[in-house]
């Protein structure tokens, strides 16, 4: 049951009334129908209350906002009571609420398995991927909001453009000046080196880190943890040459680069792929210092 249901009932009883011709018998029948509708509404309200009290349902408080729709232009929270099933995730609960109670409830999601990075949200005060957050691990009511420090487009959807811009500002593509001879020859890479960059290549661009970062919140030009991690992924890849590493260090050393990080570890804490973001930023700071000493 949701806050939306009584409204729907109202709408259907209005339609009934409009199509009613105006004879006395018809009026009586209309009155009867109106009372039946009232009783139905009351019953639904009671059921909703019962469901709310029932332990096998979970209560969600979901942020709602739509710049275009009357009644949603002022942000508000809607309450949904969703039947709990074992293994239910926050995403499952949101999908249930949308498909059962209110089809306008809006959030991004696709793969359902923590690899597409679409459904990072602010759940009970922390940045989480909705699809890999178990309801059973959360305190009720479960409060679901859009990612902080990003502009809200609608409900739980935020504008990701700024995040994408930062990701693309670090020349996020492999560069090298020499390839092996021979048409079907791969570049060689040590297992150790592959292992070194492995965690950094797991980023799914969900934006949780950027949203959790105080520095990014205060400095809109800060590259942010995800973009710096992307730079790390290439700077540490031995297949790129020294000269390219040089260029990469210059990019991340700029005014809004690695030196802005104050090692608060909030990005590392929220990363759903367990990437040691802060460690990567720190390591790049050390590399940058070493690099600068070289030219002293």
């Amino acid at each position: 049951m949701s806050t939306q249901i009584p409204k729907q009932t109202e709408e259907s009883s209005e339609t009934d009334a409009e199509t009613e011709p105006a004879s006395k018998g018809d009026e009586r029948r209309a009155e009867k129908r109106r009372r039946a509708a009232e009783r139905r509404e009351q019953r639904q309200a009671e059921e909703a209350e019962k469901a709310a009290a029932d332990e096998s349902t979970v209560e969600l408080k979901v942020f709602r906002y739509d710049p275009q729709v009357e009644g949603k232009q002022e942000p508000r929270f809607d309450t949904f009571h969703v039947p709990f099933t074992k293994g239910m995730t926050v995403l499952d609960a949101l999908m249930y609420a949308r498909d059962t109670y209110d089809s306008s409830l809006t959030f991004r999601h696709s793969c359902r398995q923590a690899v597409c990075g679409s459904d990072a949200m602010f759940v009970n005060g922390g940045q989480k991927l909705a699809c890999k957050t178990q309801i059973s691990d959360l305190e009720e009511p479960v409060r679901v909001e859009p990612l902080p420090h990003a502009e809200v487009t609608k409900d739980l959807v935020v504008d990701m453009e700024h995040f994408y811009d930062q990701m693309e500002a670090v020349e996020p593509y492999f560069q090298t000046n020499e390839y092996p001879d021979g048409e079907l020859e791969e570049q060689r890479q040590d297992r150790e080196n592959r292992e070194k960059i492995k965690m950094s290549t797991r980023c799914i661009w969900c934006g949780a880190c950027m949203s959790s970062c105080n520095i990014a919140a205060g400095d809109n030009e800060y590259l942010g943890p995800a973009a710096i991690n992307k730079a790390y992924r290439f700077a540490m890849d031995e297949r790129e040459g020294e000269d390219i590493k040089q260029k990469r260090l210059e990019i991340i050393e700029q005014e809004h680069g690695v030196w802005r990080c104050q090692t608060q570890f909030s990005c590392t804490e929220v990363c759903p792929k367990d990437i040691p973001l802060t460690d990567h930023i720190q390591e790049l700071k050390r590399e940058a210092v070493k690099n600068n000493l070289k030219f002293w």
Partner: protein
Amino acid sequence: MYEHDVVVVGAGGAGLRAAIAAQEAGADVAMVSKLHPVRSHTGAAEGGINAALRDADSWQDHAYDTMKGSDYLGDAPAVEALCQESPEEVIRLEHWGMPFSREDDGRVSQRPFGGLSFPRTTYAGAETGHQMLHTMYEQVVKRGITVYDEWHVMDLAVTDEDDPAERTCHGVVGYDIQSGEISGFRARDGVILATGGMGQVFDHTTNAVANTGDGVAMAYRAGVPMEDMEFIQFHPTTLPSTGVLISEGVRGEGGILYNSEGERFMFEHGYANNDGELASRDVVSRAELTEVNEGRGIEDEYVHLDMRHLGEERILDRLENILHLAEDFEGADGLTEPMPVKPGQHYAMGGIETNEFGETVIDGLYAAGECACASVHGANRLGGNALPELIVFGKRAGRHAAGEEMGEAEVTTGRSSDWEPADYEFGVEVGDTGGSGTAAADGGAVATDAEGVLGAAVDRAQERVEELLSRKGRNHAEIRSAVQETMTDNVNVFREEGRLEETLADLREAREAYEEVAVSDPSRTFNTDLIHTIETRNILDLAEALTMGALAREEFRGAHWRKEHQERKDENWLKHTLISWNDGEPELWYKPVVLEGENKTYEPKSRSY
């Protein structure tokens, strides 16, 4: 209106590769996708990319394995192209920086996979698709290719000649999810559909929520036949509660399947006496369900996949992602206990009929990747053959669309001299219900010049959106879940005539219900209710074609098992199923499979593993 030389619809593996190839061939390219590229479902692929990279291996062996795996329903020219070009494409990915798993000598690692005669599956842990998707998107960023992300393509702009083979595609109609803007995208040289899978036709699937087969349905309604739709791969190892995929890499590395009696049933019950767990996917899926049906399943639902004996070090090195998936989505610890698995919808072997360059029968319209059927997978796809298909055929379609000379195709499209009408009578009416919105000729237009055709398609899309937003009616979600339920219950691993017919009747009902569909969210901003409602129509068209194909094909081949027909019938059925929309009256027909390769003919043999 936006205008480019080549417009690529979809930004997963095939779309990204197509866009890069078209740009390298000199075209001005744009990608239009309902998701941002890195959200595409290529990213969920786990196991790897088959490529004959080593001296002891050969593309010929890869082609042989693929033809056998296809149960001799793959077209040899397409299969050979896949196997010949996969090695150079894999090396290209490596040169673009893709972080493959490595051997001690620093070369890329390969592992065994089901149905392969050589360990030729190249991989990056158990997250090969994620690494491939991101590596290719990086190249798209590097090249500055225009991407219209979160634009849902609603329709194709195609001329309306009677014969689909005479039609021309001039572009697509897109809906900007963010703003609600509807706009034409004129494609001067070609449109490439790369919209991926159609798993949402079923309810237990490894596919993403976005995999609604949009491109296949659009092409179908514009007059391109759908090919071999009845061949759906059910992956043997998906998590029971969510359908999340557990990579074949687990079995490739030595993982073992057990039933409730603790028997290694693949051997002990004789399903695959040579290859056991590494038999082809269709074989393993049927074995698992047979175990469950005969009372040897666990909780009457699934079997166990055990990898504990591989040891923590090897698991962490090569299958780490599997540990996270089993833990996060099933609460199982793969290091200390076996993982519950059961078959789940995974892949559509069929799709938009194309030749080996990705061309469809409509001039200027191409398709590549899972949405296309070239056909390289025939009746059953081998593990590790989907990712090379994306890069090989994405590249080919991109080049061809950009105007590169590529020679004569050997695989035909449309009705050549050797087509054959089907004489199957369906007990239930199929096709268009004749009501508003789902009416015929989505692709057709009276105008013949590009701008006129595109303008008319935009107007129709506009009208459709206004209609859905303004009227009152049923929510699409109940219709979609009714379709998914009946498909999962009846058009699954095991199929029988009566239940397939019932499904066709259920689908008819769903089509009729869809006549009354409406969108209750009135917003123009990020209206996912509207997008899902439009997708549900695509799901309906695909589910129907799939079921029709399954009814008509009265044999057992590859992934298509029929209770009444327990043999592969080469005499009658070495042919592809095609379904043409035919302006709302679907028509079933056949064309022969091409078994003649470059230097040899692939003679059908009995298929045992």
